[in-house]
């Protein structure tokens, strides 16, 4: 049994794994210890670069494998690295099914890669930028991803925001864009964290009004909501607090007309047949004001 210590990055793991493969170490002969936080193996863990390579050893792997391993390595769990090495080991011996979703290892690998992609998508979707300064010059966001995906999102937001500077802070790291260059800072400095968590948005009411109105209470469907927008994200979304209120409203009768609660019973305007130049304010508009039906 060989304990391999490395700094927890994919690049370092890749170099160590290469040594292990060349030395002919089978998956059950290797234990992976990542990062300085792991104390238990300190006495024994070591890098693998002193392993003797087997004479004439070399290996080939499918071209798509490194990218897939790198993606799956971003999945946070206890045994992150041992699965990766098992797949690499099998693939290096010509067993291509180790990558496929129909294989026990392959299905686990694919599932982790998929979860990472999904979490990146969540980050693209649910990050909420709040403006700093008046007029707004910078935008900051606080987000809690379940996997190590922040780095992957930098390019997306750089393309999206153009010259506008932004910062995304997470419990682990912060990503920064000054309008021209990007940086990933890990761990996230406490002052940045505080800035991202406390920024207030004077225009938040506009978004909430939109969210309330675009919802159709006649179609209320809690399960579908939870599937699209897992509850763990609600606390950092401005609309998070409106969700329960809207669902309760729907149950208590808002679903009868589907109209947003704020509009129900408000004075309306029927429009006469002869109307022309409507709402353009030319005075030819014929509308009948109805009395406010609200009690």
């Amino acid at each position: 049994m060989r304990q391999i210590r490395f700094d927890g990055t994919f690049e370092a793991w890749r170099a160590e794994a290469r040594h292990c493969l060349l030395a002919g170490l089978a998956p059950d002969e290797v234990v992976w210890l990542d990062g300085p936080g792991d104390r238990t193996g300190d006495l024994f863990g070591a890098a693998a670069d002193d392993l003797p390579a087997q004479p004439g050893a070399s290996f080939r792997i499918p071209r798509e494998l490194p990218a897939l391993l790198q993606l799956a390595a971003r999945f946070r769990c206890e045994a992150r690295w041992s699965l990766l090495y098992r797949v690499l080991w099998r693939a290096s011996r010509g067993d291509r099914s180790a990558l496929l979703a129909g294989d026990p290892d392959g299905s686990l690998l694919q599932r982790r890669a998929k979860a990472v992609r999904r979490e990146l998508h969540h980050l693209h979707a649910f990050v909420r930028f709040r403006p700093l300064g008046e007029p707004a010059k910078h935008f900051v966001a606080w987000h809690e991803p379940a996997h190590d995906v922040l780095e992957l999102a930098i390019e997306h937001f750089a393309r999206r925001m153009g010259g506008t500077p932004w910062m995304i802070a997470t419990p682990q790291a912060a990503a920064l864009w000054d309008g021209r260059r990007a940086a990933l800072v890990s761990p996230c400095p406490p002052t940045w964290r505080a800035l991202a968590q406390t920024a207030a948005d004077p225009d938040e009411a506009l978004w909430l009004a939109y969210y309330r109105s675009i919802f159709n209470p006649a179609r209320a469907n809690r399960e579908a909501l939870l599937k699209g927008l897992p509850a763990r994200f609600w606390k950092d979304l401005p609309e998070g607090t409106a969700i329960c209120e809207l669902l309760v409203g729907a149950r208590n009768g808002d679903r009868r007309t589907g109209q947003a609660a704020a509009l129900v019973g408000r004075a309306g305007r029927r429009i006469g047949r002869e109307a022309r130049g409507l709402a353009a304010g030319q005075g030819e508009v014929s509308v009948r004001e109805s009395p406010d039906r609200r009690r």
Partner: protein
Amino acid sequence: MQLIDKLSILADAAKYDASCASSGAPRRSSKGRSGLGSTSGMGICHSFTPDGRCVSLLKILLTNFCLYDCQYCINRRSSDVPRARFTPEEVVRLTLDFYRRNLVSGLFLSSGIIRSADYTMEQLVRVARLLREEHEFRGYIHLKTIPDADPLLIAEAGRHADRLSVNVELPTEQGLLRLAPEKRARSIRQAMGVIRTGEQQAQQEPRGATFAPAGQSTQMIIGADASDDGTILRTAETLYDGFRLRRVYYSAFSPIPQSPRMLAQQPPPLLREHRLYQADFLLRGYGFRAGELLPDNGNLALDIDPKLAWALANRALFPVDLNRAEPALIARVPGIGVLNARRLAELRRERRLRYADLQRLRCAVEKAAPFVITQDYRPRQATLESAVLRQRLRDGSAQLELW
């Protein structure tokens, strides 16, 4: 009127349009340039409302004043609702503000008909032009196209927008005549034709200006008239074939304030809408024809999905040997999607397929079991009558209670 008030009214007026897609646009980027916004081809749902629908775009009407009297519509002129109108600048401001906060990926702008079709279309185009030209906005824009608008205006709309849509509203011309007296099936299809021609011209000149690169879509209202699912799906199929539509959306008619008496005062038929989307997916992604799914018209079954219904009606084709069959036929097996059909074909190049492979791929194994053969499995139910199988495989009653 305050901006926030207008927004409340004009979002409420827009929510009956089901489409909120932001996918299919070409890759655009603002990195290292002035302006704002990007598109990647993939849509993003920035939020979900408690009806489970995705919020991808700022979906609003420019105004809910309308000269028309479409009976199913909350904005019809005889409807007693608060009315409002945005200025184009207000729409631009809201779009950019929401976009910077990462609340939306763009704008879906529609409008009631004011003054004339041309005037209304001009207003919509003006917003898109402001966004694209003055603010160098590169996010997603979806514009509603007003039937009868000047083809030149539609052409300009296509230059600015990623997607254009004209709603057919009702599956039949008779339905339209009865419920939307000012609308004509012919002018709706003409507008679709103008868009289609614009797309084709742009494709022939790859270096020229783009034209609605995310294509066109439409929407049909379900349950406002008596059309059955067969009619609806055949209409959809004709539109897919004739105009290369990217999507047909189905919108269960949802009660509106003071619904006219000629319309049903019922909860929206959500399960029926769900089955139509499933059937539509089979038309677009699986090569099914409407006539295969509903050979004698009528409605789709509510208790089982349309693929299972088709398989039960075509037992002679099953069971399918997964180690031998064409991938296209494997994709027609209930419980196995196109993606998994492709994965199975990949896997069987490495080794023989076994029953456990279906479980590992997370196919709906219970549904698939009576219809497949693997190296280690042959269905005992292959001799069961379809009626018995149907009893066994129907969706849980919990799912039937969407309302």
